């Protein structure tokens, strides 16, 4: 029995010690000694097909911004911006019986944006509208950059020329016709005793609105002004005895105010002129290996990834680790007019309609090469979009549309011209990191 216990003792010792192991590992060897089955691949030679397309129309009503002016250049043609708005009063107008008319002005405030050359004198005119701005004539309640002009009196009620300083707090006073002002003054005096007084309806019947247009022939810049109660109003000055007083006619029915933007591309025979409807497209191959994108006029860049899905056929097992869309502005195109700070990206179909907004989930940054202008680029991280494309088994050619953020698309003429030099050093490209296992 003694031996039995000894043997059992030995066996249990064996068992206890047998779980002993110490490995302070991580020996590093060269890759020639071992076989690593999987690979990580960086691919940035995927062919991209880029096009310029033109948005049908952009809603420019109710944006609380005026765009007025004219500018032209070889890239985007001759752009004219005209703004139409109503002014009005919130309650019936009253004047003191011994009031004396002084003058009437239109007051404008800058909105910190311009397009063009502010070193040139900026000349605009104010015209009184002859047709009403009627909501019922709106299209779905909106007006667009392409909406028809509202008929206005060809004789301006005011004009001004100045050197614009769009980032300043300067207030612009446009003197309006004294005759027009005196008439209005007299009408108020006369009719303020009527039932309901001289109220907004009566006023609007008399004064239908204002069109602000660039003076014919004056090509300098397009300036953006505010269009809210506190930034846009017509002011009638009068005095009672020694006291100066005024009546304010602020912008009224802001949803009716809109900016009409005309783009004349014929003067430099730009191929962009061939874009008439949304489903038209202009390949970058036919426009100097470049595509255009601009707010206000509505140009958009469309990028197709025709061979991307082939990745899933050439290698059975891949996982996308990271994907970047690198958009490169054409070298000489952003010196005078700067680059928009941010771009938006949407999924698009073959009719150029936009779908899901990819920009919500993507991170982007813009690097500007100030020295050589060689490496300026927008880098957008589209990893989850590309991952889902690779897994998609349909035949659709994946495509995205590059545009400006919504507000900027409606209220500015921000623009970028992207190069697709098909293999040149700084050309729009897709860079993908993937795991092949």
């Amino acid at each position, binding site marked *: 029995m003694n*031996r*039995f216990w*000894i*043997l*059992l003792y*030995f*066996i*249990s010792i*064996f*068992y206890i*010690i*047998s*779980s*002993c*192991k*110490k*490995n*302070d*590992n*991580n*020996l*590093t*060897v*060269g*890759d*020639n*000694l*071992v*076989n*690593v*089955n*999987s*690979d*990580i*691949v*960086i*691919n*940035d030679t995927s062919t991209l097909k880029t096009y310029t397309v033109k948005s049908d129309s952009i809603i420019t009503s109710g944006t609380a911004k005026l765009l007025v002016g004219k500018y032209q250049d070889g890239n985007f043609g001759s752009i004219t911006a005209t703004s139409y708005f109503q002014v009005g009063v919130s309650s019936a107008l009253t004047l003191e019986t011994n009031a004396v008319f002084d003058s009437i002005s239109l007051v404008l405030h800058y909105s910190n944006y311009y397009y063009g050359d502010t070193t040139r004198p900026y000349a605009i005119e104010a015209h009184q509208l002859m047709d009403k701005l009627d909501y019922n004539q709106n299209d779905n309640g909106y007006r667009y950059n392409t909406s028809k002009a509202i008929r206005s009196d060809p004789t301006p009620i005011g004009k001004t020329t100045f050197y614009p300083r769009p980032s300043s707090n300067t207030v612009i006073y446009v003197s309006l016709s004294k005759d027009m002002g005196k008439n209005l003054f007299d009408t108020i005096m006369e009719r303020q005793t009527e039932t309901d007084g001289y109220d907004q309806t009566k006023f609007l019947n008399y004064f239908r609105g204002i069109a602000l247009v660039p003076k014919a022939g004056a090509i300098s810049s397009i300036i953006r002004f505010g269009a809210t109660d506190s930034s846009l109003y017509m002011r009638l000055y009068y005095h009672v005895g020694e006291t100066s007083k005024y009546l304010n006619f602020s912008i009224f029915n802001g949803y009716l105010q809109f900016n009409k933007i005309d783009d004349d591309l014929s003067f430099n025979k730009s191929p962009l002129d061939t874009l008439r409807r949304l489903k038209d497209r202009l390949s970058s191959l036919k426009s100097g290996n470049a595509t255009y994108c601009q707010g206000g006029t509505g140009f958009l860049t469309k990028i197709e990834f025709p061979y991307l899905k082939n990745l899933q056929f050439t290698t059975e*097992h891949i*996982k996308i*680790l*990271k994907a970047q869309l690198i958009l490169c502005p054409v070298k000489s195109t952003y010196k005078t007019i700067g680059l928009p700070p941010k771009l938006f990206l949407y999924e698009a179909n073959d009719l150029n309609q936009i779908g899901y907004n990819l920009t919500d989930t993507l991170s982007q940054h813009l690097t500007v090469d100030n020295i050589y202008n060689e490496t300026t680029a927008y880098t957008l991280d589209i990893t989850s979009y590309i991952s889902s494309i690779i897994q998609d088994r349909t035949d659709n050619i994946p495509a995205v549309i590059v545009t400006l953020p919504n507000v900027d698309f409606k209220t500015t003429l921000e623009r970028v011209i992207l190069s697709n030099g098909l293999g040149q050093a700084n050309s729009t490209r897709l860079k993908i*990191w993937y*795991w092949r*296992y």
Partner: protein
Amino acid sequence: MKLIYPILFISIFLNSLALEAQTITSSPYSMYGIGDIVPNGFGQSKAMGGAGIAMSSNLWLNNINPASYHSIDSLFFLLEAGIDGRQSTFSNGIQKQSNHNINFSYFALAFRITPWWSNSLGLAPFSSVGNNINTTKAIEGSSENFNVNLQGTGGINQYYWGNSFKIVKDLYVGLNISYLLGTIKQTESLTSGYFSGSLTTEDKMTLNKLYFNYGIQYSFNINKNIKTTLGGIFGNKDQMGLKHDVTIFGNANDTLEHNVIQQSSFTLPQYFGLGASVKFGDKLLLASDYKFYNWSQSESLQPNVKFVNSTNYCIGAEFMPSTSFRASYIAKMKYRLGGYLNNSYLMIQGQQIRDMGLSAGIGVPISNKFYISLAYQIGQRGAVKNNGLITEKYQTLMFNVSFADIWFLKPKFD
């Protein structure tokens, strides 16, 4: 009562479960094929340089040659179990790294069935995998690299039944039937500055296969005191199917894919071995073996490793100072010495990996029934100066216990 035997069987069975999860090796050389193929041989053989083809003992078990069980006395039951400890230092010329492992190594039992047939049952490791290696690989389409960690664990065990048959006097043939069973897991993990987390491919390979090998031994006396034994072992080429269960993990620890790929095949080579031993009375035993493995018929699944024919040479001696039962304890111990040279079947970078070393050991009688053996081995595998391979310097210590008891009593006539 012989209660001890059922208890032994039960603890053996429990330990076999523990052996399933063991990794005996920690070596980068174990990541090729089915791992480091563990040479056969227990305590006595290990101390004698690994020799054993022409050895046969009534006290110790020898699974190198299945014909060797013929020396077991008909009344006896033999039991052996061993623990193996290994300490290794790896060097790639720039860094050094060490590991140590202690494992429950083997156990076996043996007894005689008929006057012409004895057998042995046992569990021993067949191959072992234990690697943890870092390397880099070029990112395609870039001049940068990504980092890779390759980890392997597991191994294959053999559950064997060896049989020795007497043909005529002093001529014996052996048949060993073993069941090879085990799982090897190799994990490849990628990391890089371009993404967070790691991308992992995990391959669990399982094998279960019946395998046969053969042996022969023939002894003759040169004179009254000197006995010579010649032995041979042989195994056929055997193709085995490895079943792969592959899981792919993305860097969010999401399982991207999980599939069981169809089998890959691994071929165990045809081999033969020749051995000779000379015994001078009970005092001195000299033995020497040569083995040849025809690995060039097997295909390596990894492109940077080629399988080439391998050869193994070993020589050993065992000395007992005195057989007289009046002699001192020290004089009745067995002293062993040996040396070996193994040209491995692995050819990496055009270099055939060479493994050589020396061994020494003692056998200590505890009582009539118990013997303890200690076997120490020191050696070196690979060489850095050849194309940046890894030099492995190792020392092993095997401790085993042998138990020989009278199990079978002839029934007394009434």
